[in-house]
């Protein structure tokens, strides 16, 4: 089976690491032991898809599927840089074949279909491959009557595939519609950042939606939003906490507690 770069780390190496939350230089080893969470301020660092597998599923239970699906360049897209070059670089730097990994796994012994996005690969944007892999995962869960656990992170639709990437929103939601109709249970885990077309499709459709603390979650990216509206926004705007307050998610769960929480939720839904 294809295994792209399990060794490559999402957090760069070095003895100390600067926290994006509080700005403190914190001892890397402490951060790692805390599952990439700042010991000073509880800031949840961005982590990779394989880290998610490691943290949220039973050891050795994950079996990846569709790792052999690779991106094309259907529009022959060239902006300042060519899409093919971007893809090549991201593959080399992350060891990933695309921005999502999907497979079957167990969570506290409970069999599930598990998917996780990786922000390092094209900002975890959803193009044809991400859409296809997720749809296959959802279809597998439907077929085998397995619960679905999807960890979201995304900058939105993949610009370089334009309308094709928009259609992945419809494709994944259509598969989720069938999954839901068949009685399947879907737990969505939103992590920093989840924006654009991913928030506006599968990530928001969980039967139960969990978010990590302080994650950016929204439709418009904060920079575009600020430019457009030209007005000050509250500091917690578009955060997990803001979404909880406004009724769009069920709970905020710290990274270390996600696995037991998902297991507990599934014990009621399956």
């Amino acid at each position, binding site marked *: 089976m294809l295994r792209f770069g399990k060794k490559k780390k999402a957090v760069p190496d070095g003895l100390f690491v600067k926290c994006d939350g509080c700005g403190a230089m914190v001892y890397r080893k402490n951060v790692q032991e805390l599952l990439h969470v700042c010991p000073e301020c509880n800031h949840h660092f961005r982590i990779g898809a394989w880290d998610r597998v490691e943290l949220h599923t039973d050891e050795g239970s994950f079996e990846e599927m569709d790792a052999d699906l690779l991106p094309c360049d259907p*529009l022959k897209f060239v*902006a300042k840089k060519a899409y093919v070059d971007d893809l090549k670089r991201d593959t080399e730097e992350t060891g990933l074949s695309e921005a999502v990994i999907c497979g079957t796994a167990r969570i506290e012994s409970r069999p599930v279909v598990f998917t996780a996005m990786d922000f390092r690969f094209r900002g975890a944007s959803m193009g044809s491959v991400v859409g296809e892999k997720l749809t296959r995962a959802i279809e597998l869960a439907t077929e085998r009557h397995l619960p679905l656990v999807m960890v979201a992170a995304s900058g939105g639709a993949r610009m370089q595939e334009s309308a094709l990437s928009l259609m992945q929103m419809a494709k994944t939601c259509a598969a989720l519609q069938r999954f839901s109709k068949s009685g399947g249970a879907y737990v969505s885990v939103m992590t920093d950042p989840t924006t654009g077309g991913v928030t506006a499709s599968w990530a928001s459709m969980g039967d139960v939606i969990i978010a990590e603390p302080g994650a950016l979650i929204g439709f418009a990216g904060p920079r575009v939003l600020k430019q457009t509206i030209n007005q000050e926004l509250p500091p917690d705007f578009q955060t997990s906490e803001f979404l909880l307050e406004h009724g769009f998610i069920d709970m905020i769960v710290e990274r270390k507690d996600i696995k037991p929480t998902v297991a507990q939720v599934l014990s009621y839904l399956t």
Partner: protein
Amino acid sequence: MAVNANQERFAYDFERPILDIEKHIRELSERAASEHEDLSAKIEKLERKRDRLLEKTFKNLTAYQQVKLARHPLRPHPMDYIGMLVSDFIELHGDRRFGDDDAIVAGLGRLDDRRAMFIALRKGKETKEKIAANFGMPRAEGYRKALHKMKLAEKFGLPLICLIDTAGAACAAAAEERGVAMAIAENILTMAGLAVPIVVLVTGEACSGGALGVGVGDRFAMLENAYYSVITPEGLAAILWKDSDKAPEAAEAMKLTAAHMLEAGIIDTIVREPLGGAHRDPLVTSRNVEQYLTKALGELEQTPIEQLLEERYRRYRNIGVYRTAPPAMEQAG
């Protein structure tokens, strides 16, 4: 004539040479009438010249010129087609949750003798109307209103006709606060399983999830000069080039024309416009729209609903371009 005055007022550079010839033709016609002069040979010559220029200009549009046509100030809007084609239209307001939204119009009406639910994007025409409609960029309540009316259509077995013209969903604090993304997601998912025929037609712009939130269906068409893309060309230029003047390049890069969408298998039909764009003859355009909608509805009515839903699923299921890694790569890593 008011239309001609407006045409000149709002004309794009690439339209102007054609309008100049037409102005000349009008002047000659007037002179012919008032001074009883026979100028028909001259006029016919000019008309031929105009037709050649129309062909030359509009059969070789750049992507960005086409985007501009899709946004032409005189281009008929979805509500204009409803005005021209739909009888006994009754607008239905409100999302039953929070509010109403002028950017999306919902209502019941008759197309020929067929009863249907219509969902139409509205940009507005006069300044006040444009502001009220947020320039055609719906907020969460717009999508939730649409959802409420879709479910109404489903309950009473009425087909759904969606007419799209939007640069995207609202980019605003209030839209974020009320979950515009979640509203779009729910609409997309619901439309995928809505048990009535759905026909979607893009009449102008269709950008981002904002267009998809009322745009999932069994039949999917675009007017000839409409465009479909992940974001506006200006938006893409600002993100990828950090320079919104690169919009023409961005428009090219996104392969956003109706012809491209047909080639990619995203739409099934291109609804023709008069040469020069829908605004040059809204009536002819509306007849083409009517023909498409009635044909599509006629076909869908004949299809059992289970088959319809299966075909709708397949329609989206099959969109996407990817490759499978060659076996040699399986040893890597």
